[in-house]
């Protein structure tokens, strides 16, 4: 009997599911499925799960449960989201999103293999390509005025709804989410704001006029819809995204993932306004048993202090805001901050906010099937930081959130043609 392993589609966008099946196995045999990927720096990420073939010698990941390994139960994309770095504290992040995919090797071993170096070769292997930009998506390097980033345009004439994509204290330019969103029909500007090209090396203040320039640039582009744009933002980026929603009229739809509703660590400036930051109390940090540091309580303590001058005036936001909260966020007390913002909206009679809270999800909520990054090295603090998250819950959160984000932007950005 010939061992066969199929993965369909074998080449797809990273946010598309893959159907994995194995046939030609000995009936009822317990086998190992292993996924391996080398990132652009050569770091190895792997996952494995143990399945039992049925009487016909088949395994179908869409129906059959993993018995053990990196996940347990029926999780058709489990091999993707449970991949872990072989060297601790590394985060999987695609840098070149246009020219190459992540190549994942799926190996099937006809026994239970859980050692890092399998002593037997796999019986059959299959390669799967995961792309971060769809056919026809264009990337344009942006150096307009002070604005630094990359604009991703869907194929076609447009105009397309425009979105600014902001990451956090990782700095530099992170493009993979912008390119994936562009592949779903949005014009997305991945915007850098520090540690990139001639931008400041360190974030010493948030100059909202820089982000206003970026918004104006986007709205002036011939392929981008007017009059309003959206913002998708995570972590420190979400604090900035929320500030943009408060102060910039052009921002009509903002997604804030695991951010604070206060100005934190560095001041916020917008024209004459200077909003002083609240400083996290690092003495409340906790060292996780891995040695990585959880910062959640440092920010949590901020909630006990009444620091109105640092709180962002969400009631001033004219557009819609969607707060996405991972309840197992070990970096910040995400839920508490989002609830404070929602309370503030309500107390001002505003119904512009909505919160989606996900039990078990951690800080780094990414597009679907991205491996849970539970901890990684944080350059600013020069130590490993715990982001948190329970793998299964985090994975299903990422799937659900991605759909909600696109629904949100389509609802509030796309012009309905019968509007007069």
């Amino acid at each position: 009997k010939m061992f066969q392993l199929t993965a369909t589609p074998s080449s797809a966008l990273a946010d598309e599911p893959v159907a994995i099946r194995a046939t030609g196995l000995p009936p009822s045999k317990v086998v190992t499925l292993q996924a391996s990927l080398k990132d652009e720096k050569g770091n190895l990420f792997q996952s494995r799960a143990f399945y039992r073939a049925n009487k016909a010698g088949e395994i179908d990941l869409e129906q059959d449960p993993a018995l053990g390994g990196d996940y347990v139960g029926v999780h058709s994309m489990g091999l993707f989201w449970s991949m872990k770095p072989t060297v601790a504290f590394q985060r999987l992040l695609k840098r070149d999103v246009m020219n190459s995919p992540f190549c994942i090797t799926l190996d099937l071993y006809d026994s239970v293999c859980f050692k890092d170096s399998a002593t037997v070769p796999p019986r059959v292997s299959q390669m799967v390509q995961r792309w971060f930009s769809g056919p026809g998506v264009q990337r344009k390097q942006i150096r307009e005025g002070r604005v630094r980033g990359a604009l991703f345009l869907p194929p076609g004439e447009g105009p397309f709804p425009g979105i600014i994509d902001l990451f956090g204290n990782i700095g530099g330019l992170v493009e993979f989410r912008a390119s994936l969103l562009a592949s779903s029909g949005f014009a997305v500007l991945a915007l850098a704001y520090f540690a990139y090209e001639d931008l400041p090396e360190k974030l010493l203040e948030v100059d909202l006029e820089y982000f206003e320039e970026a918004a104006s640039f986007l709205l002036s582009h011939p392929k981008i819809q007017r009059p309003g744009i959206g913002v998708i933002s995570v972590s420190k980026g979400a604090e900035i995204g929320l500030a943009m929603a408060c102060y910039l009229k052009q921002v009509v739809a903002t997604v804030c993932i695991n951010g604070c509703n206060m100005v934190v660590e560095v001041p916020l400036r917008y024209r004459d306004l200077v909003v002083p930051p609240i400083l996290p109390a690092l003495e409340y940090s906790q060292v996780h048993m891995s040695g990585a540091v959880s910062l959640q309580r440092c920010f949590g303590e901020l909630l006990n202090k009444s620091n109105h001058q640092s709180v962002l005036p969400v009631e001033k936001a004219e557009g819609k805001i969607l707060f996405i909260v991972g309840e197992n966020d070990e970096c910040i007390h995400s839920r508490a901050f989002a609830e404070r913002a929602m309370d503030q909206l309500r107390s001002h009679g505003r119904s512009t906010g909505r919160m989606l809270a996900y039990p078990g999800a951690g800080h780094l909520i990414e597009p679907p099937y991205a491996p849970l990054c539970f901890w990684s090295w944080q350059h600013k603090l020069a130590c490993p930081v715990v982001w948190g998250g329970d793998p299964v819950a985090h994975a299903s959160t990422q799937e659900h959130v991605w759909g909600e984000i696109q629904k949100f932007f389509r609802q509030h950005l796309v012009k309905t043609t019968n509007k007069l």
Partner: protein
Amino acid sequence: MAQLTAAPLSALVDEPVHIRATGLTPSQLVCLRASLSDEKGNLFYSQAYYKASDTGEVDLEKDPSLGGDFVGVHPMGLFWSLKPETPLKRLMKRDVMNSPFQIQLKLCDPDVPITNRDSSTLTASLTLERWYVAPGVTRIEVKEGRLRGALFLPPGDNHFPGVIDLFGSGGGLIEFRAGLLASRGFATLALAYWGYDDLPRQLREVDIEYFEEAVNFLLRHPKVLGPGVGILSICKGAEIGLSMAINLKQISATVLINGPNFVISNPHVYRGEVSQPTPYSIELISSNALGFVAFHRVYEQTGDVDSQYFFPIEKAQGHFLFIVGEEDKNINSKCYAQQAIEQLRRNGKENWTLLSYPGAGHLIEPPYSPLCYASRIPYVHPNILWGGDVIPHAAAQEHSWKEIQKFLREHLISTRTSQL
């Protein structure tokens, strides 16, 4: 002038230390750091943040840590929260006679961010000695017949109750617990059974006659009180300890820490009778978000449920103390202790005590030992998850050590007086 005091400066590892800082400004925020270098030069660190009182003092017996490696009032927290600089290293003293562990305690300004570098201003420091043997304890290399180990004798001319100390995990000769137990008045034989001297390099079978030789050796010794001996055992050692207690009449008291009530991996042999190892399902292992592997489900279909595999514990004549860490992720300890106890009950026997500790993991060691949450052992997959939550695990270690000594005294000493 800021001052740091700790008393006693030199003590046994199972003795608490009272740490205080004085001469601070009122409400001053300080950091207390502990560091240790083991015999191979591996570094271990811990830290905690405290706020001085109105009188400029910090007293670890009364004041709560705000953050760091532990939170709350934990006078010995700096000891049991020590973490390896190189992940997964386990702290274990090899030479117990000639040198203590030296712990550097430092009082410093809070280091922001948290790093292990000694970059913060050093205000005061001192060195503590933590010994595994009391003054006057003697160590005798044991190389009689097949026996390989080390006998630790308390000081003095008396007779002492005899105990055999058995570890599991990686084989070799582990002496630290035996040295401590001898310091508390027991003649303790740290017994190796594989991976040491001319013993088998790998464990092939458990020959109970080897352990019977050890029992006879101990009882023959002029300083050992008879007529029975005790066993202090953990993990694989506890599996063997249980087998010994059943087959050897001279076992009066057996402490079983996180052990199975059935044969694991290697057959037990005693005078021609062979007990085969219990079948297991290796595919039921699972990795957590950090990539550490839990083995506690592999006997789910056999040893967890089927009494055909259970040791005939009702045949044992001595007393049992079961010590269970309920968060043990290596073996299903709680289930196995309950099965063994149920079997004793059904046979009308009451010769047992159970101490079950919520939050404690697999490696329950003497008090103030750092929680080893995961580590590597030879011949097995790296990154084995032992489990345990730091604070309850520390409490379990403190409580169980006292109970172990009480139990051994009760069942090893009283029998003698009843024979007069």
